[in-house]
C-alpha cells in the first residue's frame, strides 16, 4: 500500500511545510482545514508529562486511515483531498503527533470534514499511547471525550 500515515517520531516542521507547499496545486480548492495535535505538558497528580510513546497496529491503522479517507470523500463531494499523518514512537512535549489536512472547494466543507476526520481517527485508528513523566515513570492513557 503506497498510502502511508504512520511516521516514526514527531511530525516535523519540515514534513508539515512540504505538505503546505503542495497546496497551490489544488487550484479548485478554496479552503484547507488543518488540525495539528501536539503533546501537552499535562500534570497527573504530582507528575508532569514529558513525552508520549505511541504504538500502533500498523497494517490495520493504514487500512482504517484509508477507510476514513474514502468515507469523507464519499460524504463530502466538495472535498478534494484528505491527508492524515500520525506518529508512532516517542513524541516529546510540544512536538506534533497528528496532522490532518482537508482541502475543499468551500471553507465549510473543509472545516466540517477535517473535524470529522479527527473524530474518526480517535474512534477507529488502532493506536495507543503511554504518557511518560519527568521521573520516567509511565502510564497508559485512553482517549477521553474532550
Amino acid at each position, binding site marked *: 500500500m503506497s498510502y502511508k500515515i504512520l511516521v516514526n517520531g514527531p511530525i516535523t516542521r519540515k514534513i508539515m511545510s512540504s505538505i503546505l507547499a503542495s497546496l497551490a496545486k489544488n487550484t479548485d480548492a478554496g479552503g484547507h482545514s488543518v488540525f495539528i495535535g501536539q503533546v501537552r505538558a499535562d500534570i497527573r497528580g504530582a507528575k508532569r508529562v514529558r513525552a508520549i510513546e505511541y504504538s500502533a497496529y500498523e*497494517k490495520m491503522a493504514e487500512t482504517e486511515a484509508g477507510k476514513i479517507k474514502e468515507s469523507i470523500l464519499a460524504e463530502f463531494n466538495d472535498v478534494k483531498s484528505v491527508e492524515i499523518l500520525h506518529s508512532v514512537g516517542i513524541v516529546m512535549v510540544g512536538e506534533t503527533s497528528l496532522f490532518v489536512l482537508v482541502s475543499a472547494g468551500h471553507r465549510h466543507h473543509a472545516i466540517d470534514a477535517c473535524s470529522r476526520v479527527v473524530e474518526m481517527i480517535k474512534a477507529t485508528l488502532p493506536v*495507543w499511547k*503511554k504518557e511518560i513523566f519527568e521521573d520516567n515513570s509511565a502510564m497508559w492513557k485512553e*482517549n477521553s471525550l474532550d
Partner: protein
Amino acid sequence: MEIQVFFFGVLAEATKTAFKHYRGVTSFEELKMRIGDDFPEISHYNYRIAVNNELVYEDPVLKEGDEVAYMPPFAGG
C-alpha cells in the same frame, strides 16, 4: 490450523508478549480459551479483537494463517 496472535498497548505490556503463534487451533472459541489460560491477566482489561485487520463483533470462522489482534481502547491523536 496455525494462527498468529498479537497483543497491543497495555496488553502487550501486561502479557509481556507482543506476538505468539498458536498451532493446532480448531476454532476461534477454542483459541480464546487457550489465550485466556496462557494470559489470565488480560481478563483485567477492556479490549476488542480484530481478525485480519477487521474488528469482530461475534466469533468468526478462522482459517489457516489468520491474524488475531487483542486491542485495548484506541488512544490515537
